[in-house]
């Protein structure tokens, strides 16, 4: 059983209030806040301003690996036991392009999946407070902090429009 991250969770009903809250806490120097929302929204993404996801690198590396593997695999296996047919080149790169293309897509997709899983920390146990309504219609801000800060953070969240506040 993994340990819970200490912190305070504020639950919001409205997205505009939530965004104001994000701006407030970021301005106050709280960089590691975690925001919950029932769907992805550009407005929240802009307020958090977290930069570009590194998943794209996984996709690129996967796609390049697939293309390279596709050409090398087909070429080396053809050269392993040379069997000339109908005057066609032993290493028929045009024909192998079809296989290299498919493997580019396949490896690119598999690597993208791992990119999402690793970066979004899928398949791991949740360490922060959570509310079941986040997948329905509620928004939330979780602020990691030490127990001594609980009261002040709770007060800040309430002032920033949080309708319910809980601590870990």
């Amino acid at each position, binding site marked *: 059983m993994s340990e819970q991250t200490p912190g305070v969770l504020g639950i919001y009903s409205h997205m*505009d209030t939530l965004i104001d809250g994000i701006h407030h806490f970021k301005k106050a120097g709280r960089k590691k806040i975690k925001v919950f929302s029932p769907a992805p929204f550009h407005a929240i993404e802009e307020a958090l301003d977290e930069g570009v996801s590194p998943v794209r690198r996984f996709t690129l590396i996967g796609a390049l690996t697939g293309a390279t593997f596709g050409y090398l695999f087909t070429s080396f296996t053809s050269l392993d036991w040379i069997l000339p047919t109908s005057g066609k080149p032993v290493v028929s790169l045009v024909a192998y392009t079809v296989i290299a293309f498919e493997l580019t897509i396949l490896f690119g997709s598999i690597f993208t999946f791992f990119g999402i899983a690793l970066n979004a920390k899928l398949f791991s146990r949740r360490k922060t407070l959570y509310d079941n309504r986040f997948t329905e219609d509620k928004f939330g801000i979780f602020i990691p902090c030490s127990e001594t800060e609980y009261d002040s953070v709770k007060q800040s969240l309430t002032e920033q429009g949080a309708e319910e506040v809980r601590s870990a």
Partner: protein
Amino acid sequence: MKELNFPFRDINRDILRTLEKPSIGYLVLLTGILAGVGVLGFCFATQVRYGMGVAGLNHPVGWGVYITDFVFWIGIGHAGTLISAILFLFRARWRNAIFRAAESMTIFAVMTALLFPVIHIGRAWLFWWLVPYPNQRELWVNFRSPLLWDVFAVSTYFSVSSIFFCIGLIPDIAAIRDRATGLRKKIYTMLSVGWDSSSYQWRHYMAGYGFFAALATPLVLSVHSVVSWDFAVSIVPGWHSTIFAPYFVAGAVFSGMAMVITILIPFRSIFKLERYLTPWHFDMMARLVLLTSTIVGYSYLTEYYIAWYSDDVFEKFIFWERAFGEYAVPFWLMIFCNVIAPLPLWSGKVRNNFTVLFIITIFVNIGMWFERFNIIVSSLTQEYDPFAWGWYTPSWVEMGITFGSFCWFFMWFFLFIKFFPSLAITEIKELAEPPMSGKAQKEAV
């Protein structure tokens, strides 16, 4: 998008309602479908027991209904990825409500298609010979063969579509998890793989989702192109054509989109999802059916023009025979169903009339099956040498397996709609106005 602007809570409630205890009607239908799968099993067992002789396949027609079914089902699988990937990249907002059902159909259609190479090879227990690996002489498979390209294309398509589909399901499974209790909660907790709707998860998820769409777009176009090259790379008259790839892809989207409409029309009524699957969605899908119908019709004409222009006697003969020979009935059925029957879709009133739309899409499904039958069978029966000609009639085993394949496809769809949301909860929420306090407006006043 005013009409899909519902409160988030209503969206959860309405869509998750489809997962509630099945009705008697659902169970009766599912039982009938399972009986159909039994027919598939029985016919396949008969073929395994007595050999390929029970199928109508014989020289010169080695590819018959099984390959027709394979190409047909791969084609059906194209609409889902078109809707989920290509329309996602184009930001077509009408895809959000329908893509989940269409995407699930892709998976199930490809699962159905994958049965046919196994059934077709006869010794089904040796299907793993299709997989590229060195034989006992350390000799690898022939990577120049279009049949092997097919193995790569279809298996990649199935793998990528499945990953894309499962990734898309994760946030919605989390929504089920958060409402479920007891054993259901445990199962959906496991399936939701730790999803918590947090900003960092959404950030990486959306980035990855975009890349999946970008990868799936060329893939979906490549798959039916590769399937078409199974034919086009040969020198069989009627097959050896450069237009086959775009012609097959258009046909695939045509049949797939028609199947999506055929399924979603009863689905929206049964599950009372009229608010989410509106006439506007069906109008847009019907327009795509109409567009691809014209491309398919144009391709039929082009084939005839090329046969005439090439002045190749064998090519001209095959195309004459298709229209007026032994297989004229399937040919004219194909022309009627794929070119004539969709013409009323030019009218907006027809596109908004669900009964007529349903009937037209049934015609399209029939027509597209016969299109594949025509291409495959008519070319093989009367290839170059008249002394080697021979006719082909599907046997009851082949027809039983074809019928059973439809039941197999519907079985998966029926099971899916009871265990997972067939409309994407989070994507419909993206269309709706998020709840706002209106604080900014109040302050401005």
